[in-house]
């Protein structure tokens, strides 16, 4: 009788284990699908703004400028589609994407936007990888909610710092209006929905990455102390 119960208990545990493994595999697939979907979300406002800018230059007969903008924009869109199909890209590729994006925005801001992108010498940017399409939405937020509302020119600094052992930090600092002021402006305008959507998407991606067994991502956003503006810090640890 005892043997009977032992046999049945063992069989039951085996089936539960198999079912749990199947569920885990399904969860992984679901995560993968969700991450894919989140990666491929290009901000429609950016597309709208860019096309508006191109139209503006065409209407002003600034052919060279509009051609330049169109070429950069199409290159950026191509990069978006290519990178969103991949789970990870190299830091060099990420920097390339950010440079393309920021130079487009610089054209739109009529040179009132400046930017720097610095990579720590310790980082092997060609081989170190980062989850794709993570940083561009944050930089876009800095542009649209920080720099856009500032009187005068603005500056965005993107810094990649090595922390050793497959860990690195990305700091995105702007000298825009700051978190509090940006929040007040957003609350008063239609743009509140856009910011919270991109923040939600980013947070969702970070949560999914942290649930996976591959990455640990820490995300922090705070007001600058040295001057007006916002700092976003992301620490990526590859497990």
């Amino acid at each position, binding site marked *: *009788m005892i043997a*009977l119960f032992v*046999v*049945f208990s063992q*069989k*039951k545990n085996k*089936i*539960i284990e198999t079912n749990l493994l199947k569920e885990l595999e399904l969860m992984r697939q679901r995560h993968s699908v969700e991450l894919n979907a989140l990666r491929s979300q290009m901000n429609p406002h950016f597309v709208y703004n860019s096309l508006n800018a191109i139209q503006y230059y065409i209407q002003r007969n600034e052919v060279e400028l509009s051609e330049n903008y169109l070429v950069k924009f199409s290159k950026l869109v191509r990069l978006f589609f290519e990178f969103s199909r991949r789970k990870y890209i190299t830091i060099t590729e990420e920097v390339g994407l950010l440079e393309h994006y920021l130079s487009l925005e610089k054209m739109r801001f009529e040179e009132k936007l400046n930017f720097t992108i610095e990579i720590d010498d310790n980082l092997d940017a060609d081989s170190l990888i980062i989850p794709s399409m993570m940083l561009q939405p944050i930089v876009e937020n800095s542009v649209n909610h920080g720099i856009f509302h500032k009187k005068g020119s603005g500056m965005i600094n993107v810094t990649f710092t090595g922390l050793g052992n497959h860990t690195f930090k990305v700091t995105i600092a702007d000298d825009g209006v700051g978190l509090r002021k940006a929040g007040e402006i957003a609350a008063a305008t239609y743009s509140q929905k856009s910011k919270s959507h991109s923040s939600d998407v980013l947070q969702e991606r970070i949560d999914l990455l942290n649930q996976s067994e591959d990455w640990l991502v820490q995300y922090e956003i705070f007001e600058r102390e040295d001057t007006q503006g916002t700092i976003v810090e992301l620490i990526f640890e590859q497990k």
Partner: protein
Amino acid sequence: MDIDSFRIIRFATIAITFIVSIIYWQRYKHSQQRYFPVYMGFVLLIECLATINVRFWHSNPTHIYLIYTNISVLYFLNWFKLILERAILPLLSMITFLVFSTLGTISLGISGGILHSLVSAGSILILVNSFAYFMELLRSNEVIRFLRLQQFWIVAGLVLFYIGFFPVHILQPYVSQNKFWITLFITILNVLQYGFFTISFLCLKRKS
């Protein structure tokens, strides 16, 4: 403790199982076990009749146990036919038992040694079908909740009883002088069997 006490213990165990089967009947009245209270009532009746036969009429209750064995084995084989995926085994078992019982009764008569052979045949057939049920259960996903399956507990009770009872029954002509210990052993088997039957009804109790 004497042999009469064992009869009381057996009777009490069967009575408790019968009462529990009625109390919980609403929970399984749409299942294949819906006629179990009737069966338990029948077992209780047999136990009463056998006791009356022995105590008051001072006669051998062989014919009562013959009726009990036939109905009991056929009831369980029919139940196996309902619960097993492959009904061919219990069906063949039923036919075999009926043929055996009929031919045996005709050739040996009721007072002959037919009861001993019938009990042996019934025990083997019930054990074979019980193991068939366990094999099916082990192959299905239902095994995850086997402790909450009413059928599991009933079959476990049958196996527990017949695995213990069958060797004693076979060896009975050689160990008949140890009537006290044999009766004690069979009483324990009965208590365990009907105890498992009782658990089969209690496991239907909803978790609060």
